Each structure stands twice: as C-alpha cells, then as structure tokens.
C-alpha cells in the first residue's frame, strides 16, 4: 500500500465514520499508542474539514492493560494516556494501524471503561491482517491483507506524506 492508497483509505473511512454516526455529535477519536496516534490525527483533520466542526480526540497507552505485561521478559515502556474528558454517553472510535490478534483492542476497551461508560465503541484500522485470537472485528477497515504469521506488517507514516507506506516483510 503506497501513500496514495493510504490517503484514499483514510478519506473513505472518514466518510464511513460520519455516515455510521450521523455526523460528529458526541464523537471522540482515540488513537492507540503508538501506531494509531498519527492515523487518529489524520482522521480528525479529515473529519473536521468535511464537517467543519472541532473533533474531540485523545490517546491511549494500553500497556498496563495488556494480558502479557508481567510475563514478557522486559517491562514495556509506559507512555502517557491523554483522555481529559469523561467518556459517558460518547461515541468512541478507536484507531490503530494494524488489527492482528485482537488482544490490543481487548486491552484498549478495558482501559476505555475506566474513563466512563461510552454509548458505543467502534474500531477503525488501516490494515486487518487476520489471525484473530479473540472475538474482535473492526468497523472501518482500510485494507484486508491476509498474511502469514511469520510476516511483519509495518505501517510507516512520516511527516512527508509521499513516503507513507505499508510494508510486508519476512521476519
């Protein structure tokens, strides 16, 4: 997937979010660290330019909610979470780059519940690579990319939009 492809996918996802939620009322976009942060930022810009409204946004570090946080060899670094508003009655769109096992999303949903009781949570991802280990599905998908378990999929977004890319590598 090249820079143009990523851009078109995000534009389509933005329209889908607006269509599904009938506008931006009570809508909050929350990026999951680290891969979801810049995607969430771009989605927010698109949403607010389409609707002409300010979009609420936040970021979430799910490390402390991971199911393997104490069992991996190293303690993962903790980044800050920034959700400075209660999520009660809000429509939350979680944003991440790659949907894989679903474990990150499980952790993210648990974390969100500690910030209130959202009206609903939707999930937007740029890539769905399959191999789910939990019953999780995305509401908005850039591209479904069947992959082998031993492959790495990396989404590289930079300040230079033209260099954006999604790469599949043998690990």
């Amino acid at each position, binding site marked *: 997937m090249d820079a143009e492809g990523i851009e078109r996918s995000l534009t389509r996802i933005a329209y889908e979010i607006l269509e599904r939620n009938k506008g931006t009322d009570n809508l909050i976009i929350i990026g999951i660290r680290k891969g979801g942060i810049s995607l969430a930022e771009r989605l927010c810009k698109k949403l607010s330019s389409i609707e002409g409204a300010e979009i609420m946004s936040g970021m979430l570090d799910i490390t402390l909610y991971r199911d393997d946080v104490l069992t991996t060899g*190293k303690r993962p*670094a903790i980044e*800050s979470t920034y959700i400075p508003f209660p999520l009660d009655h809000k429509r939350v769109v979680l944003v991440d780059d790659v949907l894989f096992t679903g474990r990150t999303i499980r952790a993210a949903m648990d974390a969100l519940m500690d910030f209130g009781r959202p009206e609903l949570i939707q999930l937007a991802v740029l890539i769905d690579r399959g191999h789910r280990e939990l019953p999780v599905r995305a509401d908005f998908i850039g591209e479904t990319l069947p992959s082998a378990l031993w492959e790495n999929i990396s989404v590289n977004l930079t300040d230079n939009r033209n260099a954006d890319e999604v790469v599949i590598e043998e690990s």
Partner: protein
Amino acid sequence: MGVQAGLAMSGWRFKSTMNLSRKDMLGIIDLPKEEIDLILDTAESFKEISTRTIKKVPTLRGKTVITLFFEASTRTRTSFEIAAKRLSADTINISASTSSVVKGETLIDTARNLESMNPDIIIIRHSAAGAAHILAGLLEQSIINAGDGAHEHPTQALLDMLTIREKKGSIKGLRIAIVGDIAHSRVARSNIYGLTKMGADVAICGPAMMMPRDIDQMGVSVYYNMGDAIKDADVVMMLRMQLERQEKTLFPSLREYTNLFSLNRDNIKLAKDDVIVMHPGPINRGIEITPEIADGPHSVILEQVTNGVAVRMALLYLLSGGTK
C-alpha cells in the same frame, strides 16, 4: 480539545524498553543514571492514572505487597499503599507497634515468616542502616528500602528528582542547596547520590557537627553559612530537624539553629527568582522553614507528595514479574 493540542501535549519523547538491572531497590548509590531516567520517565506516565475518576489499572492483579514499618510514617507508608492499590496489587501493612516485634521476634524471623506467605514485594523501613539489604540477601522477593536509619531513602530521592525535573526541565547544571542536619538525614544522602549523578551542582549546608564525616567524598560543596549556600540556587531543599535522632550534647539550642539555618522571607531572596522550595516532610513549622515559605508560591512540597505516589507506582511496576 482538538487533536493537535492533544498531540502537542504528548511530548513524544522516545522511551526505550528496558528493565531495571536489579531485584531490589535498596539505595541510589548503585543506581546508574540510565535507570534513574527510566524510573522517572515511567513515573511521569503513571501520574495521569491518579487524575482519573477510576484511579486503578489492572497491571499488578494477584500480586501481594507487604509494607513492614519499624519506624513511624504516614506519608511514605500511605504513598506505597496507594501506589500498590492503584496498580491493583493486594497490600498488607505491618507496623512494629502492632506486630510480634513487641514480643521479641527478630527482624530475620519476621521476614522469614512473611516470606512463607508468598508475597511478591516487601517494603521495609527500619531504624538500622542496612536492614533492607539484609532482607534482600535473604529473601527471594523484591525488597524496597523505605528508609534505613540515617543511610538511604531511595524513593524520596526519586520523587524529589521527578519534581525537580518537572519544574526545571532537567536536573543537569542546576544549583541545588540541601540545608539541615545532613549527617542524620537519609533523604540528604540519597539525594546527594542521585543529584550529583544527574549532573547537578549540589551545595550542602548545616552546622559543622551535623555534617557527615565522609562529606568530602560525595562530590558536593560544603557551606556553614546559609546565605552562601542558597545564593543563586535553582532549588532549595530543607531537611526536617530530626529531634528524635539528636543527642542532647549535639544540639545546644533550637533557637540558635532556627536563627542560622531556617529558610525565611529574607534569605530566600538570595536564591534565584524562580527558585523552588522542597521539604520531604513532616515539616517542623517555624524551625527549619517559616510557614509563609512552606505555603508560599515557591513551595512544591505538596507536589512532591503527589509525585511520590507516581514514583512508587513506577518502581512497583518495574520490579514486578517476568525474568529479572
């Protein structure tokens, strides 16, 4: 709040995945600068949890933390307990006055018995220097030193360093004055080790009889005049006059001490305009610091307490689980 503002506040500092190279947190003296940075970075991220409506994350679910306090404490013990609870650990508090210590049980027997109940982390405060080190050598569990005699109080130094870094951006190159009874102060000792490692210019001040004998080897400048010590300081750290540790012969007159070594509205003008004033608590109001300074605009004393919870959460997290 727009996303731009949100992202700008994130402070995208890259934090590497690394571990503490130790099972226990016994002192600052053998803690490398990189590990101090790791603990402070982690603590910075943990601060946000204490501002939530639901102030709890599930990370240490199923872990047991014991606080074993042979000396009085409200701040430190409560801070550790809150830190552990906000990480979902179970906590048990034992204080000497209500334990079998009053029946004559030795420290080592107490520790062996606690070990048999399979805790994960034991936090100890004791009046004897080296008490935490003894437990660390004997027990499999992670031991955190919450103060051992006049030796070290590592978590206090870490929360002080977090507060300074937050207020001043960095510790390197700052002029930091520590004033009071240095010889009896584990807070001073841990801070001297930590702040010099982080590149601060540390000035120590107090009566000559309250200077530790090894002060020459600590990489600090020593003053016996308060004005000289706090001149142009970025940070002034006042120590509690530990009346309970003073032998009467060392301490002729409290009023004389207050006249010479108390921080007040006159001598604070010698420090930089944006000086921050710190105190580990509990404060003896009117002895080492006047109430108007302790409660004044330069004071960050209560922010130190807030940061204490974050630093202790960071330590409990970094010392828990996995391969060491």
